């Protein structure tokens, strides 16, 4: 089973994307396996709506473990299964909180095991702020790392926010040669393209 890892800075919308993408692929409830380096792993099945309430937050570094779920994409008459891994957000510099750092280290350890990398960027933030303050060093590094992978795409999130066009342009400018899919994790926009991209690389 191939693995799809969701990477990005904190507050880019990784968890919301993961849950809504699962809903888009037709699940009513999602079975998450939460794993973190210290406490091992445990599994919970949660209704989509509850999952959003529980796991999504606008606070930075809300996700600290890796949340994974097995999903499937229709494939001819059958379906292909893959594992989606929602990770702790990465940030520039060295974070002062050890649990946050541990989450990031665990994310890095998992990146190497994934075949497909979906890199979530906050295009609303990029539209609003200077590139220097919105795209992190870590994003450039992830993009360079992604070049080694065939299954690497940038998800330019939050296109539901007004005046986001400028952000999308900046993303394409900053990451030339990469596959950029504009999405809205909140309104499930652009999910068909994401599904097709994942399907191509399964």
């Amino acid at each position, binding site marked *: 089973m191939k693995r799809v890892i969701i990477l990005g800075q904190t507050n880019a919308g990784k968890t919301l994307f993961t849950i809504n993408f699962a809903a888009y692929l037709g699940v009513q409830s999602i079975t998450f396996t939460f794993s973190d380096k210290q406490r091992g792993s445990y599994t919970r099945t949660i209704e989509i709506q509850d999952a959003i309430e529980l796991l999504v937050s606008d606070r930075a570094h809300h996700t600290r473990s890796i949340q994974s779920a097995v999903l499937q994409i229709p494939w001819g008459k059958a379906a292909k299964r893959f594992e989606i891994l929602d990770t702790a957000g*990465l*940030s*520039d*510099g*060295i*974070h*002062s909180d*050890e649990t946050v*750092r*541990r989450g*990031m*280290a*665990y994310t*890095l*350890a998992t*990146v*190497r095991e994934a075949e497909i990398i979906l890199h979530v960027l906050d295009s609303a933030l990029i539209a609003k702020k200077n590139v220097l303050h919105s795209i*992190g*060093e*870590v994003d*450039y*590094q*992830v993009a*360079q*790392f992604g070049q*080694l*992978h*065939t299954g690497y795409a940038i998800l330019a999130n939050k296109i539901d926010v007004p005046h986001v066009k400028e952000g999308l342009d900046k993303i394409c400018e900053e990451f030339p040669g990469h596959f950029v899919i504009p999405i809205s994790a909140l309104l499930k926009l652009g999910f068909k393209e994401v599904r097709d991209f994942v399907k191509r690389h399964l």
Partner: protein
Amino acid sequence: MANELHVNEPERIYGLVEHGEISVSEALSMIRKSTNQFGKAEVEISKEERIAKIQRELTKLIGLDSVKSLVLEIQAFVEITQRRISARLASDPVVLHMIFKGNPGTGKTTVARIIGKLFLEMGVLSKGHSVEVERADLVAEYIGQTAQRTREQLRKAAGGILFIDEAYSLARGGEKDFGKEAIDTMVKTMEDQRSDLIVILAGYSEPMEEFLETNPGLKSRFPITIEFPDYSAFELFKIAEEMLEQRDYQLNKAARRKLFRIIEDVRKKEQVNFGNARAIRNLIEKSIRQQAVRLVSKKTTSRTQLMEISDDDIQEVVDA
């Protein structure tokens, strides 16, 4: 912080992130650098495999059976000592300074380099490079400069191997010679940086013996002695063949016979300076040039002709 050394060890990179020593960006760039262009991570190669690869490099060397088994013995000893330390058992500090005795061209430098790489992988040395020096690199003309010069070389070799060729020459020149100062400086540094530097003294067997006799303090500080025997005629012949193969040449039948006879003859005469791979390399290189001279006048040459070394190409005279 971003030490190049850690690049191949992802576990260590994650550890550095967790302990807040490097940022995620730095970690990603380190992981990326250790992943080759085919997208296949070199990091997959485990420590054991890398050690096995270096061991193969050692066993591939022709002859040197006693050397090989001794190196493997040392490796096993170091490994077990490391395990004993982690099991909190009593263990003496491992002293790995060595003496290599043997004629020139018997593989001393090659083996020293392999040992460096081996100990790097085993975590005994932090860099595993080898710095090859001789008397002139250590001893200066004027008083007081020798210690400085020697320390400079020792500093360069820190984390790796300091290979002192013809080490006995340090004791030549009697009491007033500065060679003694070089030895004293070296011994002092060896005591101070016990763990992360290996000094190898190399040279001809007999002068080395005398050298150690006259400096009794040295013998105890270099607990490992490896003798490099001269190659036998057959081993030399195999070395010659391998050298030619690497260069895409082949000996024809007559040439094989002639080469073997030459090697045997010289071995029988027991020339002090012969018996060695370096002399064989000179012989081979000379024959390659002779072949070129033979072929250059021909208008067309086939692929086989270009590869073939005939008996005429091999010269009788072997200069050491």
